[in-house]
């Protein structure tokens, strides 16, 4: 184990991953996770020389293993945990089946802090991606995926995050139509356009580290706006945008929170249409109190003091299961068309 100013770290991530795979094979718990769809097709990076290619993106013809790396700050006092998960096993999300790579006490988890925390692991990770792991006597390449929440993903990729013009780390869409970014809006579409096809970011957006290792940057010079697309700093991890995990936990929580907020907005809009704005605001505030009381008394869920005060974990799913109670409380307080759409959205 390694203790630095940034935190306590495993001395060798590569050895820990290899040991875990050996254990899984010996115990007969190793599971193949075959890919399908777009990732099976030969990508342009596969046709390029190896030095310009992103590591962690093995050719589709070879059997591989999958490893997810995630970082998240939490707890009080705050500590950032770095965790590697081996996907080729029955329960990859169980904490006992994951590898705790590092615990770093920190106040902030921005790009510079993460760079320090990952300093000792990046060479290990490179070695792991370069050498692969031994599985039943055969060396297999590692497909690396990026876990974490949205903020941590953006920091690892050197992306500006929510404030960026192109705020999605996977595609090039802009936030919303604006005069200043009209050219980008026209070329790549905005998040608000729901009927357009998306322009995915190329692997080259995240290949600065490859360039630093002696490879040729495949598109433009790093640092130009054409190259980065809101990726303002050199990515800490060179990861193909198609291998960024779509944060199912945070997405579910975020979408449920948005639905509850939407209920209050519907009440405000309805009341404002028939009365003054002040009455609309007051009606919304009153309904918010009524809603949270209802969720407490009938659904038996409560907001947590962390995760932005959302309903999390089992509570989050329970709210979804008892959405009929929320919809019933909205009757005669919102427009009929709004209520019908709201009920249908919950049912999906």
């Amino acid at each position: 184990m390694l203790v630095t100013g940034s935190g306590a770290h495993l001395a060798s991530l590569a050895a820990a991953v290899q040991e875990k795979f050996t254990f899984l094979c010996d115990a007969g718990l190793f599971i193949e996770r075959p890919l399908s769809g777009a990732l099976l097709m030969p990508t342009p990076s596969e046709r390029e020389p190896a030095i310009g290619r992103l590591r962690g993106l093995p050719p589709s013809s070879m059997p591989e293993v999958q490893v997810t790396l995630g970082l998240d700050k939490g707890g009080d006092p705050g500590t950032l945990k770095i965790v590697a998960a081996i996907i080729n096993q029955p329960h990859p999300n169980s904490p006992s089946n994951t590898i705790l790579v590092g615990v770093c006490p920190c106040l902030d988890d921005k790009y510079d802090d993460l760079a320090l925390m990952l300093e000792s692991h990046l060479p290990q990770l490179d070695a792991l991606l370069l050498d692969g792991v031994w599985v039943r006597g055969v060396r297999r390449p590692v497909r690396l995926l990026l876990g974490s929440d949205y903020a941590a993903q953006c920091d690892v990729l050197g992306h500006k995050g929510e404030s960026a013009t192109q705020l999605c780390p996977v595609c090039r869409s802009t936030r919303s139509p604006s005069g200043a970014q009209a050219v980008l809006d026209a070329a790549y579409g905005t998040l608000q356009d729901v009927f357009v096809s998306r322009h995915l970011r190329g692997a080259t957006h995240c290949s600065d580290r490859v360039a630093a290792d002696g490879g040729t940057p495949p598109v433009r010079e790093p640092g130009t706006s054409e190259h980065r697309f809101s990726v303002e700093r050199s990515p800490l991890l060179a990861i193909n945008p198609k291998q960024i995990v779509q944060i199912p936990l945070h997405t579910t929580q975020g979408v449920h929170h948005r639905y509850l907020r939407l209920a209050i907005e519907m009440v405000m809009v309805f009341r404002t249409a028939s009365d003054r704005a002040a009455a609309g605001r007051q009606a919304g505030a009153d309904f918010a109190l009524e809603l949270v009381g209802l969720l407490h008394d009938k659904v038996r869920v409560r907001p947590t003091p962390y995760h932005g005060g959302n309903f999390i974990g089992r509570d989050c799913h329970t709210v979804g299961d008892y959405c009929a109670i929320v919809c019933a409380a909205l009757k005669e307080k919102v427009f009929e068309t709004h209520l019908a759409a709201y009920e249908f959205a919950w049912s999906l």
Partner: protein
Amino acid sequence: MRKTLTRAAVIPADEVSRFRSDTAAMVCLLKSSFPWLSISPKLHILMCHAPDLLESFGSIGLYGEQGLEAWHGRYGQNAVKFPGATELERAECFMRTMALAREAGSDVLARYSPSRRPAVASARKAVQVGDKRRRENKQELPPCAAEMWKAAKKRKQWAVGIAREAGKTVGAHLGGQWA
């Protein structure tokens, strides 16, 4: 759709295609029915990228961040066992223990873990409806006043926060009418 997104299992092909159509339908419905609703990054991820990842990898829940989040709980629960002058010392102690625990694989643990004998066949079980050992027949503990007060305060905070957010969104949509 929610269960497809979070289930830690390989999803069947028909469910994958249903997920794609459901997410698209949901976001389009919301956008057309509620003009003030802005597509947030999470809604965008859900509609545009989650179906692709699901199609490629066969699951999203398997790759989720549950395991990562669970470590915060484990760290917090065990904080008392790992005292230290600084947070770094506590982290070091915790890391060392976890690394050693990882060394003890299931074969080692099975050798040393206490084995539990099955219950005697004649042991009394709570099978009667009125049995007081059954959870539903147990008397509820009286609620703690301090806990209730704290929960009510949190609910109020949540309501104020969400109403403020909603007010801003509706205000931006209605413009002059809202002022």
